[in-house]
């Protein structure tokens, strides 16, 4: 059980660091979503199921959906979403 928890905690740290250094916004949001799911699994291991349910519904569900809608609103996931968000922004300003 403790080994499992070690693995999950390590996964959390990896997720957090890769969120900060990933270049595409979409990737970082997906990584954050998995981060929330792992967090809720850890809370089940810590014998607090209420938190696990709430985190899975709120953190992994609704918050990520709100992030996705925001990305859609700022046109970061459309045909130019594949390339780096910053340069797509620059070329949009040139237009």
């Amino acid at each position, binding site marked *: 059980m403790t080994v499992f928890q070690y693995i999950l905690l390590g996964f959390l740290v990896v997720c957090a660091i890769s969120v900060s250094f990933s270049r595409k916004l979409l990737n970082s949001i997906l990584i954050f979503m998995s981060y929330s799911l792992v967090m809720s699994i850890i809370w089940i291991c810590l014998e607090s199921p209420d938190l696990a349910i709430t985190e899975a519904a709120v953190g992994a569900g*609704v918050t990520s959906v709100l992030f996705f*809608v925001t990305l859609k609103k700022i046109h970061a996931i459309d045909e130019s979403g594949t390339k780096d968000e910053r340069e797509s922004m620059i070329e949009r300003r040139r237009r």
Partner: protein
Amino acid sequence: MSRMKSEEEYRKTKAFHFFRWLSGEKDPYIGNLEMRPQKEYMRAEDSILDRMRESQMVMDKVYDTRHNRWLLLFRRFYRIMAVIFCIMLAGLLLFTVSYLPPTGNASNPDNNEVASRYIESGMQETGAVNIVTGMILTYRAFDTFGETNVLFIATCCVMIMLMVEDAELKKQEVMNDRRFEPKNDAILQGTAMVLVPVIFIFGIYIILNGHLSPGGGFSGGATIGAGMILYASAFSFKDTQRFFDEKVYKIAKISALCVYGLIGIYYYVTGANGIENHIPLGIPGHIVSAGIIFPINICVGLEVACTMYAFYALFRRGGL
């Protein structure tokens, strides 16, 4: 005796010219010095343009993010200082953690009479089998009411930010809402047809069993809100508005909050004044039991579901 010089001789002498010049009768240079009218100074067009271009270049150099040396230097300095601050904070916190009482130890200071009373007599005092729900809705009811108000005020702020009053702006928002998305996706709609009722039932189950099993108002409400979001994104907002438009939203949210507030103030005042409050606790383990927890769970669930869906709708199209 001096010989007289005749007048016309005298007029030829230098002395005559000199004295005449002294007395200012006649300018000696008149006639043999030409005077030209001075044409006024006129700046060339291109020099003006040059100057404007220079000032523009200065402006660009001052306000240029990428090539302004001082700005870049300041940013680098700020970043370095912030990184150092973060590393110091990490070291400090780890140092603190190393002194904190050990995890999982039953004799930690935080496992004191408070937790033991919650566990030992919580079911008798609140009627809730789930001790966490009983604790946050009965012992610490004021916190939870404040938290519900956090959701409410966050919705108000998002409305201020994103609510679109203007008519054709609203139409435009609705127009480019579905860009780069299939209008009627058969797979998505079929899945939603199957999943949404299940999600709703699951959320309602979580809310109603909040005092018996894990969960409660917040998780159940978030689940129902997620189901509504799935429905609204699989079908269009028109289908959602058939059963949930702005009027229904306002009625649901305000009635939920007001019922919660009334129950809360009744509970606080009776408890503080030592009056016996007439809310029966019921038999622990039954659905309709646990005094104020059951209705408060329903209110909180309604509020949370409305809030989550309202966030989504406001983000998508600037209105419910």
